[in-house]
């Protein structure tokens, strides 16, 4: 023991850090902040450290060259001992990090922690969120597969919308005129040097401010923040009634951090690493690129926005959101902290969560994408053809062969881009069906140039037979009057 003491003394004589460390560890925090709600910041930091460690390990095998990245990922997955596990830890760590950062942000927002004097801590936090998302996107690129390749194309397309410098921005992003070797190399530099360096610096400032300004006290309804009195009030909470951070509050951070690491490891073992999917070969076009989980909402948004809204939404939307987040502490820097007395804040969080959740959920099955193989893969349901005429069956053939099925479902099978046609005859009369098929409209292409009159007749006959049992097809009353056949079904009243 004496020897250990001597070694300690030797280092302390030279480093002189013991006092600082003790002071930092034992700084007083308000007693009620020793809460399970206050563990997310340290958990995010823990996962970031895991990401650094696993990232360095991956870089020992990974080759940041467009020609070899994909095969080096395959080697990591299949040849290098436990390479799959390190990749899985890094991939799941990334998902967990974004999730924890978002939860941390929501907690900070709902607990009013961004108010005076912690405005700058919040602002740095906003940049930390952006930088974390930057890590996620650049990391997805480094997993250089089909999704990464076409994802870069999507990124370039979005960048090209910037007025005036759009074309330059694309070339700067890609490192040249096309997605190629230079693109991957520069995303490697971003993901491994630039963004992590920024992240470490920002985390340092963020933590320093947490220490200097003190952790946000537990918000009490009715205890308002006032710039003139807050510092003294907080001092009262910490100096008179506070408790040392170590060990009073830190044990919960430690438990939660350990639990989160275990959860990442469990996901890594159970689900394994992400991809890589197919080779990044642009001549393989049989692919439907999908972004990683935390960008799925964006994928949904880009599909659902009307074309005229897209450029403004892409260019102005992010600026407004980021500006809003940055200005938040200046717009409501004082006053009530407790979420119990801030209904609009709670409502805002709920609306954003539900919106992002809905978009993410929709992106899971992408109803806006045509099902490329539905026309040849999904059969016409038997019940539809039961008792149908020869013309209707011919129409069913046209329906399949002209790929209508890629966008329209029958019996739950097929694309969902257009409406399901199970009961189309109830909605549209024969004339309306003909018009819709020939001219298109709404979101449907016009098929007039691509169908012979005979094919159109057959197709419309088939569509006219699509109605649930017991429901009468739609009919044009004026035609009935003109023909004097009021009781006849429109489905059988063909010209």
């Amino acid at each position, binding site marked *: 023991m004496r020897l250990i003491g001597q070694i300690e003394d030797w280092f302390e004589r030279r480093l002189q850090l013991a006092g600082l460390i003790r002071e930092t560890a034992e700084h007083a925090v308000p007693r009620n902040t020793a809460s399970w709600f206050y563990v997310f910041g340290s958990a995010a930091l823990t996962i970031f450290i895991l990401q650094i460690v696993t990232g360095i390990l991956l870089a020992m095998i990974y080759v940041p060259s467009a020609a070899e990245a994909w095969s080096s990922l395959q080697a990591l997955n299949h040849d290098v001992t436990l390479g799959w596990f390190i990749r899985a830890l890094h991939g799941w760590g990334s998902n967990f990090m974004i999730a924890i950062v978002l939860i941390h942000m929501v907690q900070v927002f709902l607990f009013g922690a961004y108010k005076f004097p912690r405005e700058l801590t919040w602002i740095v936090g906003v940049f930390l969120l952006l930088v974390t998302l930057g890590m996620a996107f650049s990391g997805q690129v480094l997993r250089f597969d089909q999704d990464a390749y076409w994802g870069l*194309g999507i990124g370039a397309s979005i960048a090209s919308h910037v007025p005036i410098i759009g074309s330059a921005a694309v070339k700067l992003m890609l490192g040249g005129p096309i997605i190629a070797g230079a693109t991957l190399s520069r995303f490697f530099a971003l993901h491994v040097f630039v963004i992590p360096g920024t992240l470490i610096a920002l985390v340092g400032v963020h933590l320093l401010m947490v220490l200097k300004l003190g952790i946000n006290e537990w918000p009490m309804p009715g205890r308002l923040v006032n710039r003139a009195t807050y510092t003294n009030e907080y001092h009262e909470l910490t100096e008179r009634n506070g408790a040392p951070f170590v060990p009073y509050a830190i044990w919960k951070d430690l438990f939660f951090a350990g639990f989160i690491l275990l959860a990442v490891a469990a996901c890594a073992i159970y689900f394994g690493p992400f991809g890589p999917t197919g080779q990044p070969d*642009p001549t393989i076009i049989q692919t439907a690129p999908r972004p990683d989980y935390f960008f799925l909402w964006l994928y949904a948004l880009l599909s659902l926005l009307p074309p005229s809204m897209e450029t403004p939404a892409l260019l102005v939307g992010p600026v407004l959101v980021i500006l809003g987040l940055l200005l938040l502490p200046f717009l409501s820097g004082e006053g009530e902290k407790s979420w119990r007395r801030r209904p609009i804040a709670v409502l805002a969080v709920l609306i954003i969560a539900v919106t992002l959740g809905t978009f993410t959920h929709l992106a899971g099955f992408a109803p806006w994408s045509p099902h490329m193989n539905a026309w040849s893969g999904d059969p016409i349901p038997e019940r539809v053809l039961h008792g149908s005429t020869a013309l209707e069956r011919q129409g069913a053939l046209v329906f399949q062969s002209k790929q209508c099925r890629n966008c329209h479902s029958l019996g739950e099978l097929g694309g969902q881009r257009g409406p399901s046609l199970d009961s189309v005859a109830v909605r549209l009369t024969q004339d309306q069906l003909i018009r819709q098929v020939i001219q298109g409209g709404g979101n449907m292409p016009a098929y007039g140039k691509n169908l012979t009159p005979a094919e159109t007749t057959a197709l419309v006959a088939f569509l006219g037979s699509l109605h649930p049992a017991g429901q009468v097809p739609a009919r044009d009353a004026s035609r009935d009057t003109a023909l004097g056949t009021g009781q006849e079904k429109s489905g059988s009243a063909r010209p």
Partner: protein
Amino acid sequence: MPNENTLSRRGLFMKLGILFNGLVATALAVPIIGFVLSSITRGRANAYLAWVPLGSVNEFPEGETRLATFRNPNVMPTDGKTVDTACWVRRVERDQFQVFAINCAHLGCPVRWFPQSGLFMCPCHGGAYYRDGSRASGPPERGLFEYPYKVENGLVTIQAGELFTPGSSAGLFGKKLPCA
């Protein structure tokens, strides 16, 4: 104690030192920024573009649309397969062609041709185009991008070398796209 207003010898040296470093930094910044922006500045002279053969005219039957692949005119050793590019070639009649970029005019996903329905469909966000490349439905704001082409000695040749992106057609540093 030196007077507040007078400059001491060491103070002067420090200022000269800062000035010296500033000059060196500026001098170094020129090539560094030149390197960083090289991917933009090089493209200003259309140096990326070149004529690339797609194949013999006979490989493309009249009235049909076929997939063709070509190698990007500029290749770096680390590019791997990324420099191989696909495009859709429509032979309207005789020497009249349309060569469409594989990239959807919405956000660049690879569009697929369906000859039966005469439509190009995009798997990402659901864009669709008619056989002549014009927009049929979905989020794209315009029709498919077209490569400039020429037919020489029985070879279909296109001017390629740059990724088509929807917003860049009127950029300050970008050339105007041939079909925009």
